[in-house]
């Protein structure tokens, strides 16, 4: 049991998720138009464009350094709230896998947990506030539960992915507390949070990549 994720794998995954977010541009922008100011998609897309452009450099690095570099690129190229939240999260993840050339399933879970904790702390947000945390937090929880109960890798990835998708869907009925949706009279209730949706895309693509490429069928 167990898989190994390298920088090369992570760059492959980034290419996949960039394609997914690029293709869903109109949909994400329409979610954002309902609750935000319409720039979430263009910011995320631009960030991922910069990451995939740096792919050759990233895949030549140990994974801890690659995560740090990804964080710096996200922070400086995206800007806004997403840039610093993703940037800070990747840098926090880089610290918990410090010294590793590649990572196993437990490391990945630790990295994702460090990410969500950094977002919670930096954004002064909690689960349930209609943000991207609402997709990542349940995914991390599902991941930890699956590892604790020694679930096999394939099933673990399916559980993590489903938790992220369900988490993003659950933002529909949440009231926004942070960010621009919080200015709406109805606090965005009835609309999905675009940041949670793009977060769930990332977790979904990562889990699918691991299932398709890193776990023996």
């Amino acid at each position, binding site marked *: 049991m167990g898989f190994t994720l390298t920088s090369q794998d992570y760059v492959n995954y980034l290419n996949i998720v960039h394609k997914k977010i690029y293709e869903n541009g109109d949909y994400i922008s329409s979610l954002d138009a309902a609750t935000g100011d319409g*720039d979430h998609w263009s910011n995320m897309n631009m960030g991922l464009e910069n990451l995939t452009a740096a792919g050759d450099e990233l895949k030549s690095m140990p994974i801890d350094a690659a995560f740090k570099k990804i964080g710096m690129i996200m922070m400086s190229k995206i800007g806004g709230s997403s840039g610093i939240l993703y940037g800070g999260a990747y840098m926090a993840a880089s610290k918990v896998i410090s010294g590793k050339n590649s990572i196993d399933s437990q490391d990945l879970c630790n990295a994702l947990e460090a990410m969500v904790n950094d977002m919670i702390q930096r954004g002064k947000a909690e689960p349930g506030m209609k943000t991207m945390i609402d997709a990542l937090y349940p995914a991390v929880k599902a991941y930890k539960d699956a590892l604790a109960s020694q679930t096999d890798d394939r099933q673990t990835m399916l559980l993590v992915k489903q938790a992220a998708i369900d988490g993003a869907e659950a933002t529909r009925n949440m009231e926004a507390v942070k960010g621009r949706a919080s200015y709406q009279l109805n606090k965005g209730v009835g609309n999905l949070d675009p940041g949670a949706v793009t977060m769930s895309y990332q977790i979904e693509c990562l889990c699918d990549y691991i299932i398709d490429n890193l776990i023996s069928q």
Partner: protein
Amino acid sequence: MKKIINNPNNVVSEMLEGLAKANPAVKYSGAGVEVISRKEKKQNKVGIISGGGSGHEPAHAGYVGFGMLDAAVAGNVFASPSPDRILEGIKEADSGQGVLMVIKNYSGDIMNFQMASELAEMEGIRTASVVVKDDVAVPDSTYSTGRRGIAGTVFVHKIAGAAAEQGKTLEEVKDLAQKTIDNIRSMGMAMTPCILPAVGKAGFELKEDEIEIGMGIHGEPGITRQNMISAQELADKLLSRILEDYDYTGSEVAVMVNGLGGTPLMELYILFNEVEKILADKGIKIYRSFVGNYMTSLEMAGCSVTLLKLDDELKGYLDYPSMAPGFRV
């Protein structure tokens, strides 16, 4: 989308390059950093910086100059600049007495400026910050993001800039900026949406005869949508909300009637004419008035009204000369 641009991805850098060419007193850092700063630096003066998403011109780059900001940091359109950019702005503004950051109250700006100040501390530069939250369309709250920072921010630049120019310390300038913030209230409305260059179409729609009272400078939802009303009724509507929130009775004020980018000056002066009548009726004395485009929202049509309650101390700083291209006094 009809815009005078070359490539939506380059609007911020090409704008700032143009701004610096048109204003020889400032310099542009170059693409990717997006900082406008004064060419001539006064030594041993508290530095004042501000910044935020682009699309609100002349905020903030147009407010760099003697008597106002030392540097302005631009993010992408409507998105906060990143900490590395803000750090460059802090370095440009620092002349040994520390740097005050004037931040508008948006989650992204707060987080990015906060991290930039930590980076600056590591480089031995002292910083302090104030957060402007003048938009009475939004309830103030410590739990949520709370009140937005809008056109009143320009008064904070003015007062803090003048105080720094006169040799006040970082703590003194910060206290004065905070005092200014405490005495400012603003309220706006929008008539048409704006189009982000990278998105290419409007993020929301308003019907032909419909306006939105309280809409934010990024098109954030306001309080109510209703049919267009007369300038007289609009002045009453915007001022009522401000005066319910803060008692300006019997005081002297600075007034700003601000256009959002797509509203002609003719209409702003008509609105000011009505604002003046209402204030006179209520015994609120206008000390100084500013009518124009100070904190815009791309091509959005609409306006905001800002009141700043003045005492002798604030009057002195308000009247102090400013050479910033966007706010000459």
